[in-house]
């Protein structure tokens, strides 16, 4: 089976220590995490981890099984790229001098759908949100003008299909719930 990008989505209780428990599952199998983000989800007090790995489908299935086994994990899913809507955010810090001289900044920013976060006589900070190829395109464009710093966030994604977490939680709820 071929390796490809899989996005593992994990809905969990908001408890200390869970990140290392989840990370350990990948570590144990010698799988490198390409990107990981954690945030509040659409459900009150439920966290959502989004983890991107390059593995085979068989591997990702087993990983999801092991993750779901963790006591505080409510549900885990995996998706292929085509089943998701992805975004990443990148920040570019560019030297002002060359950049200003060469460019009609207004139209450049318009065309790339980027946004100026800060401008000073020394540097500009530009922000771009989009898919990986879009943030990379802008990287290539800005490189010649002296990129002083570049940083990209982990990928965040939502599925094209519905993920019925609220209903699942309802089903899990038992009378004597302890979180």
């Amino acid at each position, binding site marked *: 089976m071929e390796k490809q990008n899989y996005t593992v989505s994990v809905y969990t209780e908001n408890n200390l*220590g869970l990140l290392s428990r989840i990370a350990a599952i990948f570590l144990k199998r010698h799988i490198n995490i390409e990107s990981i983000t954690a945030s509040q989800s659409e459900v009150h007090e439920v966290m959502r981890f989004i983890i991107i790995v390059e593995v085979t489908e068989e591997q990702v299935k087993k990983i999801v*099984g092991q993750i779901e086994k963790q006591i505080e994990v409510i549900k885990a899913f995996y998706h292929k790229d085509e089943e998701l809507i992805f975004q990443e955010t990148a920040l570019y810090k560019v030297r002002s001098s060359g950049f200003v001289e060469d460019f009609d900044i207004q139209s450049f920013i318009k065309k790339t759908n980027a946004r100026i976060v800060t401008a000073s006589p020394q540097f500009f900070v530009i922000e771009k949100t989009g898919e990986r190829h879009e943030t990379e395109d802008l990287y290539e464009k800005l490189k010649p003008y002296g990129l002083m710093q570049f940083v990209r966030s982990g990928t965040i994604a939502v599925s094209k299909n519905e993920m019925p977490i609220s209903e699942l939680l309802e089903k*899990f709820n038992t*009378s004597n*719930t302890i*979180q």
Partner: protein
Amino acid sequence: MEVKTAGFKEVSVEETLKVSGAEAVIKCLLAEGVEVMYGYPGGAIMPVYDEIYKYKDQIEHVLTRHEQGAAHAAQGYARVTGKVGVAIATSGPGATNLITGIADAHIDSTPMVCITGQVGSHLLGSDAFQEIDMVGLSTPITKWNYQVTKASEIPQVLAKAFYIARSGRPGPVLIDITKDAQFDSLDFSYKKCTGIRSYKPLPEVNLLQVERAAQAINNAKKPMIVFGQGVILGGAEQLLKEVIEKSGVPAAWTILGLSALETDHPLNVGMVGMHGNYAPNLLTNECDVLIAIGMRFDDRVTGDLNTYAKQATVIHFEIDPAEVNKNVQAQIPVLGDVKQTLKLLLEFLQPNSHEQWHNRFKELYSIEYEKIIKNDLSAKHGKIKMAEVLDEINTVSGGNAIIVSDVGQHQMVACRYAKFNATRSNVTSGGLGTMGFALPAAIGAKMGSTAREVVAIIGDGGFQMTLQELATIYQMNVPVKIVVLNNNFLGMVRQWQQMFFEKRYASTEMVNPDFTGIAKAYHLQTNKISERSQLKGAVEEMLASKEAYFLEVSVEKEECVFPMITTGASVSDIRLE
């Protein structure tokens, strides 16, 4: 109302009382019916020990001589009783000494709650004296763990710990409690945990899959069952027997499934795996339907997965969804507690006898008997063989003893030759293969099952890993029987060196101390034999003793355990020599 007797089933303390965190810990243990715990004190857990002192009429604490001993004793207790074993230790080195036992319990699904002390919460993360990140260290080897930093959390967290440890597929839980949380006070009330929203201990049973399984079994010409510890953990021994008897399907066991079905049952066809029996291993690659019940296809069972039971329709009865298709693809997965699923299965099964197929097992057994078993059991010359010792114990105990084995050749021999009439009688370290397990585990096993004879079978190597627990045996007056099979070698490793490293016996030969002298120094009754003619008398004397008894048997030095499936080989390539 508070009911204080230990061992009480449904205790809940509803009235609130002002108590310290340390006292709350003991009250929680009492409410969970804990009668005994194993541990070792130290600075960071002293408040709890002070309460142990105050409550000593209600709950017993066993001072082992090393925290590893405490963990293994708690495991032994849990394995024979089915209750949650409890081990307790101080922070830092006390906590890390528990690690081996926790890992062992994790891989063998043993319910256990470990409680460790921790430095004061204001010191966390400062590399304080005896601070260790016990939650971090134990994360990959616990079913759940938690660090308590506030006294008020204790009742809820301990209730949750016990619930998680014993429900679903059982396992060890670790609770790390900072010293300030032990000292602080709280309003104590206790409610047993009955559910956690993100945790579903039992998967839903799909009746359709049960029916499919039954159909496949009913239509099979050469079906074979391999059962594991899931049968014991699910309390489904009787159901398993009914399934086997109704369907007439020959049944083999994994090392941890041993004793779920009595050894002498006519459809019991022996052990699978690396040193298992010839017939069930070989016929795994001949059967048309392989019915795995409460076992997880460990690599020591399957050998090379590419050649394992490829011809068979695999039916997998399993409680843990993550185990299904993990190693072996199951055409018919039946999720659920085996106690539920086997009961349903039974109704759909048609009576059958599979006589011809069963005769295949018998034929292969006679080959194994001629080549191996006969020589193992009835050698006339040379030194005593390990199997003869087991055979004698079977005879004298009538198959009613609990056998606790350590790790090595003697373990494989014990599992191959010990006879069992009752379930929960085989206690051994299966998944981790922990040398040093048996002596402390035997303490827990005996304390959990006082009416039964508990015999520990240990190698000269493994014995020296935890022999300090002889002191615990003496102090607590635990009448376990200890048999050290002394071959002056780390025998199992030596066997591999003989077979695969051209007899380069690197660091496996052992010049041993006077073992009986050591046991005597710990005030135990002892005996040492080296002649075949002494064996019967020695075993009889040992089992007749009402006290702890230490027997050293000098056995053949360079014996090899066969059959054997070498690592990575196919079950079909099982070697008889």
